[in-house]
């Protein structure tokens, strides 16, 4: 029984990481796929990049309900506008419509949007619409809770005039980095690329993404790791004489000095064996360092 686990009446919120980037010839939109209710992941494979028209898409963040209803209204108005205009709507018009809804209902809505698309007049454009309804045309935009972790990254990695491949790789890398650190972002990376030729959707599950700091290569099971046996010991160390009989040993997280609990000697522990650290062998008999204590001594049961 625990306090505060899943508050199933908490609003559905797309914690989220959303990104929109312009490149030489179009735009790339990217997002994670996690929708959460409190601390519970309600949907691990959401699609946060929503189509408004054939050439304009919208990334949604914040309240799932609010962003859905805003996108539904914008799609509806844009559809009518397209019929009246007789040709595809421009990205600017789509963005302005979204801005009007966000601004005029600012007290009730909690949603941040990134609009991206391509039209024949201005080419690829990205518009950011944060909380409150500000409209900002930007070469790239980031939003959602995961974006906090990306400001520094984009300051360093963003450049004008990228190719389509560079832009898409940048977006995938950025969303992946945000997923690594933001608990509210997760799942797969989805991208939508829009240019004069049309629209391409892409899907990157976690096995297609790089591993970041302190992340490990995924395994099928611990049993596979145990059955492949131990690697060679570090050079310069000889095995502990009790290695085969002693069944109490710890696996170190980093291969630094760990204490053999059963015999309380400062043996360096590596993988599934104990090895003497020559510098410490004089301390063999009794107390170890740190929070340890002599409770079994040599020669006693």
């Amino acid at each position, binding site marked *: *029984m*625990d*306090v505060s*686990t*899943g508050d199933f009446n908490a609003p559905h919120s797309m*914690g989220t990481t959303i990104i929109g980037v312009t490149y030489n010839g179009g735009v790339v939109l990217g997002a994670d*796929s996690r*929708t959460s209710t409190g*601390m*519970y*992941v309600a949907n*691990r*494979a*959401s*699609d946060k990049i*929503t*189509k408004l028209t054939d050439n304009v898409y919208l990334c949604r963040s914040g309240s*799932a309900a609010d962003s*859905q209803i805003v*996108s539904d209204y914008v*799609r509806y108005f844009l559809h009518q506008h397209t019929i009246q205009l007789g040709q595809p709507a421009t990205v600017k018009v789509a963005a302005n419509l979204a801005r009007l809804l966000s601004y005029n209902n600012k007290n009730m809505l909690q949603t941040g949007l990134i609009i991206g698309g391509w039209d024949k007049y201005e080419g690829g454009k990205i518009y950011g619409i944060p909380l409150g309804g500000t409209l900002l045309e930007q070469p790239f935009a980031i939003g959602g809770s995961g974006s906090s*972790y990306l400001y520094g990254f984009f300051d360093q990695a963003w450049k004008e005039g990228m190719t389509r491949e560079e832009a898409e790789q940048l977006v995938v890398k950025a969303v992946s980095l945000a997923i*690594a*650190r*933001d*608990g*509210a972002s*997760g*799942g*797969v990376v989805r991208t939508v690329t829009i240019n004069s030729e049309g629209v391409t*959707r892409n*899907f990157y*599950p976690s*096995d297609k993404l790089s591993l970041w*700091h*302190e*992340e*490990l*290569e*995924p*395994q*099928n099971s*611990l*049993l596979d*790791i*145990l059955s492949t046996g131990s690697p060679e010991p570090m050079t310069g160390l000889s095995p502990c004489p009790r290695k085969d009989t*002693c*069944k*109490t040993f*710890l*696996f170190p*997280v*980093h291969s630094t000095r760990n204490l053999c*609990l*059963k015999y309380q000697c400062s043996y360096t522990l590596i993988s599934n064996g104990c090895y003497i650290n020559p510098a410490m062998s004089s301390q063999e008999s009794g107390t170890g360092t740190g*929070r340890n*204590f*002599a*409770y*079994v001594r040599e020669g006693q049961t």
Partner: protein
Amino acid sequence: MNSVDSKPATSSLIGSEADSQRTLYPYVTGTSVVGIKYKDGILLAADMGGSYGSTLRYKSVERLKPVGKHSLIGGSGEISDFQEIMRYLDDLILSDNMWDDGNSLGPKEVHNYLTRIMYNRRNKFNPLWNSLVLGGVKNGQKYLGTVNMIGVHYEDNHVATGFGNHLARPLLRDEWHENLTFEEGVILLEKCMRVLLYRDRSAVNKLQIAKITEEGVTISPPYALKTFWNFSAFENPTLGAEGSW
């Protein structure tokens, strides 16, 4: 007549300014711990994440620790409080060994000690913000229990903390049985940890599994689990229903 000024009475029902720090809300937290009894002893699993609010700040936090010769503890909740609990347990084990009488504290006794600490702190409105799993084997008897920040404690064949209660326990109720082998136990725990990885926001893909038997304690090296995203429904979920999930 007393010519010396006397200090005004400083009565406070809750505590004085000379209070030690109290945890009002947690800062760096660990998520679920899952534990099961199996044929030879106890298996515990926990990931290595230390979250700082919604940020997954630390990814190599060891939340499974041996206690004495016969017990294993897994801690979730505030990490600093868990570290404090480890200091209390070290003192306990030290005192036990200083008797040098051939007896050593078993898991049931350690669990009871923890329960008293947690409950007494709760009564002083200064809890240790943790949920703990304590498992062990002594003289062939297996023991697995849990205790949390408000002092609720119980033992069972399988226990969990936090989200583990909601996501892992149902799986364990369905698939646990007496005399699980080590391999079956590991596979079952990994199934639980994978679900937690999908559905718990504060889960991190780096975990350890610890085992305790009559012979002693083994804690595995950190490793990550494979996850599955290649369902056709995941690839284009909003086709035909634009704007939805």
